[in-house]
């Protein structure tokens, strides 16, 4: 089977690679682009460990073919910190909102997408938004607190900047 030439932007960088027609975006990110921060937990779209955004939309990269990313803008966990950590990343460390840390990249990517749409969510809104991101270690308590603390700080910064 001939491969497909894919040209895309990942975390702002232009990249191109040859994708097997059956290759998922998750596998291309991990195996072709060495962006192993995005994890596979299930391969069936049930656990959210592979969460990335494509043109701003939160997706499970295990459910998307690499070829479908052609011409799109992909953001992964590796692009989340700019000169310094994103407030969500910092608050996850401060609140001990991770134990094994395997689900953490996906949860951070998903939580960032939430706060971009809804900067002041209720706990219930956070819980339902993150319902597609499985964590087996924490019981979610500290994750919810970290997201809310980051959201509060980001609202404060936003007001300060305005």
């Amino acid at each position: 089977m001939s491969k497909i030439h894919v040209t895309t932007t990942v975390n702002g960088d232009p990249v191109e690679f040859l994708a097997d027609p059956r290759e998922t975006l998750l596998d291309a990110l991990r195996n072709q682009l060495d962006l192993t921060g995005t994890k596979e937990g299930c391969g069936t779209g049930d656990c959210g460990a592979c969460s990335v955004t494509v043109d701003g939309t939160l997706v499970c990269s295990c459910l998307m073919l690499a070829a479908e990313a052609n011409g799109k803008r992909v953001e992964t966990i590796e692009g989340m910190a700019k000169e310094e950590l994103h407030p969500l990343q910092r608050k996850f460390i401060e609140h001990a909102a991770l134990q094994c840390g395997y689900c953490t990249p996906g949860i951070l990517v998903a939580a960032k997408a939430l706060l971009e749409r809804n900067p002041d969510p209720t706990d219930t809104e956070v819980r339902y938004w993150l319902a597609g991101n499985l964590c087996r270690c924490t019981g979610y308590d500290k994750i919810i607190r970290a997201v809310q603390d980051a959201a509060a700080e980001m609202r404060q910064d936003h007001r300060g900047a305005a």
Partner: protein
Amino acid sequence: MARDDVKTGYKLIGTRPNRPDGLDKVTGRARYGADFSLPGMLHAAVVRSPHAHARIVKIDASKALALDGVKAVVTRADLPTGLTGEDLNLQDNTLAGDRALYDGHAVAAVAATSALLAQDAARLIEVTYEVLPHVTDVDAAMAPGAPVIREGVADYSVPEGMHGNVARYMEFGHGDVEAGFAAADIVREHTYKTEATHQGYIEPHACVGQMGEDGRGEMWVCTQGHWYIRRMSAAVLGIDAANLRVTPSEIGGGFGGKTTIFMEPLSLALSRKAGGRPVKLVMSRSEVLRATGPTASASMDVKLGMKKDGTITAGQVYFRMQGGAFPGMSPIGEALPCAFACYDIAALKHEAVEVIANRPKAAAYRAPGSPMAAFAVESLVDEMCRELKLDPIEVRLKNGATNGSKSSYGPVYNVIGLKETLEAAKDHPNYAIPLGPNQGRGVASGFWFNHGGETSVSLAVGEDGTATVMIGTPDIGGSRASIGLMVAETLGIPYEDVRVNVVETGALGVNEPTHGSRATFASGKAAVEAARQAIAEMCRRAAADWGIDAEAVEWKDGAAHPAGPNAGKHPPMTIGEIGSKMGSTGGPISGHHEVTAEGVGASFGTHVVDVEVDPETGRTTVLRYLVVQDAGTAIHPAYVEGQYQGGAAQGIGWALNEEYVYGADGRLQNPVFLDYRIPVASDLPMIDTVIIEVPNPGHPYGVRGVGETGITPPLPAVASAIAGATGARIRSLPCSPPKVLAAIKAAKG
């Protein structure tokens, strides 16, 4: 053992600094099992049996091997023969011999130049099966007429006349049980069942193995214990353990399920056959669920006698547990001692049998055996409390084990904190919140022994006055932070000046895995001893410099100080000054400690849960949840809370949703996370925690170990809360909506 340096007012212990691996884990840089790659690496796939029980008549790999890029196929014929005991069981589970024993049992493995190609090749390997009769249910497996799935599994303990699938039998007890029941006002007896559940770590098993024709190899693997991986893999492959070097990756959860091997030796066998090229093997989620360690399923009879004032006069249990198709894997040896561990009862009788069935080889899962035992015993205690209209916490206080009690399984408890957890639960605001319609409250206590185990730790003082600690227990939930805190406290230096590394098998003596809630206890205890050794040497270096006896030097606040009137006046010599000069004062300064750690302190907990049950659908919503548990000393309280909350969430999942569902064909019906549904964020409330600190006298800072007890009480607590909400008692987990709805209808008559 005396607690040798009880201190109050610790500088660092009990604080909540950032974990050292936090930055890597929030940026995606942390490397887990599947994140490791090597030049020239091949990818592997495994062929698995679609049958619960079948004779393997023929394996034909010719079509697979004819594909360009396919480099090696391994079947059982490639593994050595002559293994016995558990080594043979491990080999049989790694690759089936003449028979596949469960749906998902590995039959062959193939390595190719890409993962997709390996999967294609696996589909081209033709296996001819002769399907055999199977059995998957614990009670069915020992019923008359059930097929004997393996001959000769019974060990010496099994009495004559039991079914051929019974592998082990246990019994113990004390006191006169019949007299105890006769003295009771009420005697009640019921059967309780729990289904198998999976640890459900989000990271699937993954490894990269490399082995040349000289039989020497390396492996990079996600594991709770790389010395276990080394020993077991070497045994399966018939090589010496010293020929294998195993490096642990960061680990994406384990909960006991990553303390053993499932497919790791295959990467080495394939590598050797493929001319020494490294081979990566990563399981899919369905492979994880079908073929790696779920916990046992259990069927349990419990009988209790109680007086009207709540005094428990006697107890009796008979547990039946199946741990898959291999003997020795069900946790009867833990479940029985845990059954009444929270109680001080005059007469007890314990009996259990282990049964094999056509299911995957069970592995440890967080407090193995204790959650099932608690479901049976704590549920019946709750039923009798409700019948006699007694407060469940008062009844547990009345009958609870305490300091100096002889435990239900023999040893005398030293200093324990069960009653402290009960008092704190009783005083907590959650226990007084009024309940509304369709709401109920459940209470249960739980226990885990905790464990010491083989432990080896090294510590090196740096030229800049920092300390590097090498431990052999992989860090699953923040143990590098807690061990760093204890070492920094001991050395009197900042937490940030201590670096704790989890190192490979070549760098330390043998370490048992991170299991038994032992990492912070045992590696921490050994690290403190190693730090004390380094302190003694630093005091000697300062003494030599000052020209006084080493006994005249004391260590405090990260520096050597002259002590006593005859030591003379010398300014303190800091660890940084000593470190910077150590090359010219006698060489590198380090400390080591190797021990099979003793002084373990058990951890008890009490949980209180409120639920609301929808009478129309039978769906249970957890409204609020309280975990109270004795940590001994909470070294890093945030990660202690994390263990409590995570254990509670797993227990809630076991109570409400999770179960292995087998069809009549013996195949697992729900091997994906959509159908094997673990709790998601929207299923749970905040999980309130209270950390009780009754220091363990056997640890320099009072640590007990907190990882496991928390999964134990949720099973009975949730079922009891549902009983409170509905009047219907569920004695068979999970309390899924259809089952709850049926129980509500039955209770209404």
